[in-house]
């Protein structure tokens, strides 16, 4: 019965309509009701995504749960949805994260709580839409629309320098995506279709491919973010409220890397191969350079933001080193591991970065400071919280048994097949990732109680315990048994490799 429903539309529109509904209870005295409705809607959305997983057919690369309707016939623009092994886990992650964000903001957000919740619900639907869209204009519209709620979240509920941060965030990402639009329109003029799958199959010359690739690169690199267009992220994170940071890190960054696998690799395979050195270089700079920058941050949120950039470097590295593997070993063996490792890293990073930002949020709610120097010895007054923090820090440092290990491990193993020195530089994350994360833990969590404010801290309450506990279970489960996640991807990734290896020239 469930399979007959237009599930994808449901998971897109339920939170959007629910969000509009919450706005009706926008007055401050109706806040409790608004919260409950928001929670109910987010939970319902998450429950609706579960059949996408249980009903998913692992054996095919074809799009599943497809919905198709004409939207703007003049330009052949359609409401075309569908998911494969790459997008399905991301949809679950999005809906899951939104539930946690709603709970995490429960009594913390006092200023216009209904609007806050509504913004997250609407954003939830839009983000899921991005992962489902098979029509590039639909994709583009949702991609841009998603910026608006985030813009408001940072601009309204953000910190002191929120205006600078929002404008930087908006201009950066908006500027990037304009190039994508140009590329999409160009391909439409050549093929007469805005369908993403059509674009993947259309022939393109080398010059065309390179230009399109670069246009996509600008759009996606800003979102990931890749060095050197990454500086908006630390600012946005620092100013964003906790929930905003969580969604930004857990989901929004994945949009960029998702774009690479959905557009760049299959649409412009020859240009990807030709420019892979550029992508590998930028990725390794992200892994190594950014790790050093993270080491010296004084602001916890900035540190985690930089660590996100460094970890996302593994994702882009995994995607684009496949050509080097082919060149070095002469076989496709290893390419699948590189891409799957990158995809697993995307999901895992969603959990871990979300958890890390929530941890900072828990402390910020009590102390109103993000500065490492204001803390010290938190374990004395918040022992349960400290346990969570150490767990997530270890996951961030890629400890086996946590999800943070799986993706990095696969990418490093595959990187060795591409080139020893790529693997060498990528593996330095073992040292630097541990260094910046655990050094922060040492200064914040351990030690004698640093000051009266820390002495007055109260340990996590039930609500916070629940949120962190759910994430802890997710991080451990994925680390101890990643097979269910990777099994979903095999068919899709194999197909992607086939596409990439098939020259369009």
């Amino acid at each position, binding site marked *: 019965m469930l399979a007959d429903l237009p599930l994808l539309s449901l998971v897109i529109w339920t939170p959007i309509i629910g969000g509009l509904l919450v706005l009706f209870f926008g007055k401050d005295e109706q806040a409790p009701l608004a919260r409950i409705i928001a929670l109910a809607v987010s939970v319902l959305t998450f429950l609706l995504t579960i059949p996408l997983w249980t009903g998913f057919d692992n054996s095919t690369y074809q799009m599943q749960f497809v919905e198709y309707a004409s939207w703007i016939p003049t330009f052949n623009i359609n409401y075309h949805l569908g998911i494969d092994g790459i997008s399905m886990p991301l949809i679950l992650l999005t809906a899951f994260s939104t539930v946690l964000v709603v709970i995490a903001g429960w009594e913390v957000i006092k200023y216009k709580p209904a609007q806050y919740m509504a913004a997250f619900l609407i954003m939830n639907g839009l983000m899921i839409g991005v992962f489902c869209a098979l029509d590039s204009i639909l994709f583009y519209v949702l991609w841009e629309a998603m910026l608006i709620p985030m813009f408001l979240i940072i601009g309204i509920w953000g910190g002191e320098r929120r205006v600078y941060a929002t404008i930087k965030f908006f201009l950066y990402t908006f500027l990037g995506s304009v190039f994508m639009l140009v590329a999409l329109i160009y391909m439409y003029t050549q093929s007469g279709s805005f369908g993403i799958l059509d674009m993947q199959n259309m022939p393109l010359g080398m010059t065309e491919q390179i230009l399109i690739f670069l246009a996509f690169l600008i759009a996606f690199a800003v979102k990931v973010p890749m060095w050197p267009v990454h500086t908006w992220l630390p600012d946005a994170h620092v100013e964003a409220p906790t929930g905003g940071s969580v969604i930004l890190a857990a989901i929004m960054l994945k949009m960029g890397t998702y774009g690479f696998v959905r557009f760049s690799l299959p649409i412009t395979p020859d240009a990807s191969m030709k420019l892979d050195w550029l992508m590998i270089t930028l990725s390794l700079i992200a892994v190594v350079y950014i790790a050093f920058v993270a080491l010296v941050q004084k602001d916890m949120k900035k540190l985690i933001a930089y660590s996100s950039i460094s970890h996302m470097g593994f994702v882009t590295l995994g995607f684009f080193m496949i050509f080097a593997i082919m060149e070095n070993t002469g076989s496709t063996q290893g390419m699948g*591991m590189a891409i*799957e490792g990158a995809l697993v890293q995307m999901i895992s990073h969603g959990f871990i970065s979300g958890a890390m930002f929530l941890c900072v949020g828990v402390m910020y709610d009590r102390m109103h400071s993000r500065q490492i120097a204001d803390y010290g010895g938190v374990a004395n007054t918040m022992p349960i919280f400290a346990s969570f923090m150490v767990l997530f820090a270890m996951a961030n440092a890629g400890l086996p048994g946590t999800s943070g290990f799986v993706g990095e491990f696969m990418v490093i193993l595959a990187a060795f097949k591409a080139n*020893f020195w790529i693997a060498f530089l990528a593996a330095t994350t073992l040292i*630097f990732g541990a260094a910046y994360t655990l050094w922060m833990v040492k200064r914040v969590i351990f030690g*004698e109680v640093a000051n009266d404010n820390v002495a007055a801290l109260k340990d996590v309450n039930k609500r916070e315990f629940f949120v962190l506990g759910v994430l802890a279970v997710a991080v451990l489960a994925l680390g101890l048994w990643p097979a269910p996640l990777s099994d979903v991807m095999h068919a899709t990734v194999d197909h992607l490799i086939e596409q990439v290896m098939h020259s369009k020239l």
Partner: protein
Amino acid sequence: MENVYLTIVLAPLIGAIVAGLFGKQIGRSGAHWVTITGVAVSFVMSVLVFKDVIFDGAAVYNQAVYTWMVSDGIRFEIGFLIDSLTAIMIVVVTFVSLMVHIYTIGYMRDDPGYQRFFCYISLFTFSMLMLVMSNNFLQLFFGWEAVGLVSYLLIGFWYKRETAIYANLKAFLVNRVGDFGFILGIAAVLMYFNSLDYQDVFDAAPALAGLTIEIIPGSEWSLMTVIGILLFIGAMGKSAQVPLHVWLPDSMEGPTPISALIHAATMVTAGIFMVARMSPIYELTETALSFILVIGAITALFMGLLGIIQNDIKRVIAYSTLSQLGYMTVALGVSAYSAGIFHLMTHAAFKALLFLAAGSVIIAMHHEQDIRKMGGLKKYMPITYWCMLIGSLALIGFPGFSGFFSKDAIIEAVHASQIPGAGFAYFAVVLGVFITAFYTFRMFFLVFHGKERMDEHTREHLQESPRVVTWPLLALAVPSVVAGAFFIEPMLFAGMFGDAIYVKPEHDVLAQLGEHYTGIGGFLVHGVMAPPFLLAMAGVATAAFFYLRRPDIPAMIKDRLSLVYKVLENNYGFDAFNDSFFAGGSRKLGRLLSNVGDTKLIDGLLVNGTAKSVGWISSKIRYVQTGYLYHYAFAMIVGLLALISLAVSF
């Protein structure tokens, strides 16, 4: 049998989870009962497995428990390999762990983190068992990192102490440097073998022995050498070999029971175990073996020297651990893997004994650890005294004690070896015997004999530790004495390891020793007449003379050789170098990249620079729009004229 193996690993894990999550509900005694039961079950099962494998000759068990993940057609599995090597390791691990668990009841009696401590040490036991029972590289790495995690948690157990949380961060990061090499080694294995399963890799290794790869353009390296050295870098971290040894002395910040369990008996021997396990790979590369040999010899000799100048009772033993780990590594380097494992086993017993006895002394001294403030404890603590004496004699290799057999076997093996570096290694391990004897008995005499140098208050309260502390000491004293004589023949000469350890015939130094081996008696007689024994006795005698008869001599030497003393005191400058070059350098580089790269160049020049230039241009262009009607009218007329003239001219 699978259920038995699962029970061995899961019993301590369950104990750890219960004590960790429900510590408050079950209380202190609940926590120690549940964990001790778990480890005891594990120990009993391990003994049964040991009997099965060693005495009844059960077939090797090698099977997966579950599939962790499949990617690219490669199955990553969690599974067990149970052979004689595993059987010995699990017995050693669970036995020492059980003793430490019991001992902890006494040692940590008043600590507020009692339940947490039991949770950690049980978790450690689980991790270590997973490591040694693994049948593939993935799970090996899992266990490898998991023991590192628990070590981190336990060194920083007293998290209020600045020195403790400095030491645990340092330990973790230095280990990560080793793991960095280790993971690259695993990646190399996967690339060329397309499997991470030990058996697949070992079966295929001989066929790939001649393969060379090019890492730096222009120089060809043997694949096995690259894999061997990369994996060994991991072992250097975990087993604290120079130059990655720097974390181990600092790890003494942790409570003494874990110094015994983790930083002496089990975790630090993981590297030794790993190399022995990988013998089919290492046998194919003499370069890697030589590298191992030299590193081990340097560690054995130079870390021993540092033991001489330590005044903290635990640090003396810690440096002796470093030096003994060097001996084991040397054994691996000369392909005497069995001797390395044999020394690992005897060392586990007598070193755990020494640490726990030291802990007993520390309890009596009210947590004073400076041996200069002790002395004459013999009459107050007879059981501890005798146990410490047994441990010390075993450590210096006194004939008949367990350490004698294992250490002598190593020295003889090095003597027989032809591998490059063996000459230096022989010199190092023989000289090391004197040094070991000297610092061990220096500590022993300063603690138990001579003048009582503690303050009045402490002296009044001196007493033997409670039974829960002394019983584990006695239990560990037994194998410290007899394990050597009992196991030397089966382990070294009668092929107890069977196929678990592979040695190329031309490397097989133990077989050469075996030709002359006539029995324990002969080995003993030979040992008493050989130079190492005389050196050991000389070491003890020197220590007795210096510290019992003429305490002024060491002081004089210290004055005369102040430069040497300073070098030793500063750990040959390793710490200072690491602090300023690696830690300081990284921070400096980070600040440079952050301030100049991100803030000035990217944000200042590109991002805000763009914004500024847009603002600047528009501020200039703004003047075009003046708002005066006649300006616009004038512009219109000029424009019109221009258009008309254009139209006319074409």
